[in-house]
């Protein structure tokens, strides 16, 4: 139960501003998840930052506003069934560079976790979102594309979710069949932004001209950097 935020920059000239644009979106999600915060930042490679405490602390500690890049996905967490620890923070990373943040809760994650563990997959936390992330990693390793892998999540995972996923070249989103957890997408000129609530996006330059929509349930949207 959380807030999610994401920003993909498609216009190379705007890449130096990634952090400056993403930080306010991320921080605006604090009330949805005051327990911990985390961020995966894509540029030259991928960096993952997570810590217990509010998003504002994390953005200040890493000076996010001064950072450039192609894409960032971020998460503010209101812990449900697992402990408030750094391990339980999102984003979860699949393979080397696939990041996932999740708002919602999975109702059958323990079973999927057991199934994956039986095939030799190991886990860093007891978090339901990590299970989904490992599942994605399996599919990607087996050769599926990001859209295909994300689109197959509902075949295995039950419950309520908005999933925001990033790779060094793409960002993608998926909502559960009932569309129970929120997501707002804004496709602007040179960027694509995602947040749980509209107000987080309201300060983006050019937001008034952007195409703003709520993704429909089970519809995978992907954007290339």
């Amino acid at each position: 139960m959380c807030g999610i935020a994401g920003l993909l920059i498609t216009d190379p000239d705007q890449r130096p501003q990634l952090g400056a644009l993403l930080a306010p979106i991320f921080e605006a999600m604090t009330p949805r998840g005051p327990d911990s915060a985390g961020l995966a930042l894509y540029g030259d490679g991928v960096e993952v930052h997570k810590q217990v405490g509010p998003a504002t602390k994390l953005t200040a500690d890493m000076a996010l506003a001064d950072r450039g890049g192609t894409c960032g996905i971020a998460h503010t967490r209101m812990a449900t069934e697992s402990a408030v620890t750094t391990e339980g923070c999102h984003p979860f990373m699949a393979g080397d560079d696939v990041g996932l943040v999740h708002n919602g809760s999975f109702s059958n994650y323990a079973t999927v976790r057991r199934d994956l563990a039986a095939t030799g997959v190991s886990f860093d936390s007891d978090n339901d979102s990590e299970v989904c992330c490992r599942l994605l990693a399996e599919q990607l390793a087996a050769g599926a594309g990001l859209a295909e892998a994300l689109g197959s999540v509902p075949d295995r995972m039950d419950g309520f979710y908005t999933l925001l996923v990033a790779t060094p070249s793409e960002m993608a989103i998926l909502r559960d069949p009932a569309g129970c957890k929120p997501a707002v997408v804004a496709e602007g000129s040179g960027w694509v932004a995602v947040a749980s609530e509209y107000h987080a996006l309201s300060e983006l330059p050019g937001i008034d001209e952007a195409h703003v929509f709520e993704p429909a349930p089970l519809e995978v949207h992907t954007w290339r950097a």
Partner: protein
Amino acid sequence: MPRTPRPSATFPAAVIEQIHELSDVGHYEIRGWGAKRAVPSFDDLTFLTSSLTRYPLEGYREAIDTTTVLGAGRAERPLVLDVPITIAGMSFGSLSAAAKEALGRAASAVGTSTTTGDGGMTPEERQASAKLVYQCLPSRYGFTPADLRVADAVEVVVGQGAKPGGGGMLLGQKVGERVAAMRTLPEGVDQRSASRHPDWTGPDDLRIKIDELREATDGQVPIFVKMGATRVPYDVKLAVAAGADVVVVDGMQGGTGATQDVFIEHTGIPTLPAVRQAAEALRDLDVHHDVQLIVSGGIRSGADVAKALALGADAVSIGVAALVALGCNRSTTTGDDRSPPEDVTDDYLALGATPGTCHHCHTGRCPVGITTQDPELEARLDVERASRRVENYLRSLTMELTTLARACGKSDVHNLEPEDLVALTVEAAAMAGVPLAGTSWVPGAGAGLP
């Protein structure tokens, strides 16, 4: 004479009967009341009252405080009750207007609150109840901002102990003209309400909903969040994170007007472990002085109240017990000033029940006029007499509670603590987190119980 064959333990007569019934109708059984099976309960605990290590208070002479303040952390007007026993949410629709009014009058007489239910607030109920908690349920039947503004507290119902995760039900025979109009439903429809609220899912969005209710009430009154007891530690913490001023936890013995039997008997955890887990969750968050805990589900006696308070509840709420006090499952009606009580055993038999085993609230044919919308049946409940009974009952519960608290040396019932209790069974010791009597053994202690 042939010998009677041995009855099956797996398929006893009652199970066989139930399978026959399901195979006749093709759908689940619906009924009223709460779980009927035996579960570990407050009966499995006993108090360590005073002798030489602690000194008792004198009964009748030394005062004991029962005042209970709910929602003092944030609300401008917290709900202040004279006793820590409230009346749980039960709808007009499920209950007759007479029953609602009687409960309201009784609660007012002892200085406590009653609660609306699915279907909105009736003017009679508001009038009769000095302190009224207004429920906000998934169905939103009859939910209006005008009623919100005259409420003394608002209770967002996430779930209830009889059916955590399930929506409300009211069968067509109870959806009469007035109930249908209040709920904006066609008359006589078998009402099945939503399980999720129409405008939020999960604590992150609930937080915004609670803010909305606070805006609509100008921050004056406390906002309660009521849940059925399942994953209690997590749920309580999330309710607090969402902004609850008071958390209400309803154990699996909690009652209902109409619910699937499978839900009533097979979901949730008993009230006994639920209290302990909820109280621990509030302490973990260090909000136990600001956020109050109400527990419900199978509370029957002052001993139950005292034990719930000792385990960390600030108040309890009663539903089925209040109906029983009104006259539920009695063989006679209340009678009134013109006519004596009338024996209605035959009406119980006609429902397939007896006085003492009835759980037929869902039928709308309540023999004593409590859970009905039929004017003739409703007339069997005299509001004056019924409310006197409930008032007597609430006073008796309070006297039982203060008797135990005094004997434990407390001048305030809220000073009862888990250390005042021991358990009579291993199960109860584990669930309540208190030692088995005569030992210092708390089964499972330190095992990181969730």
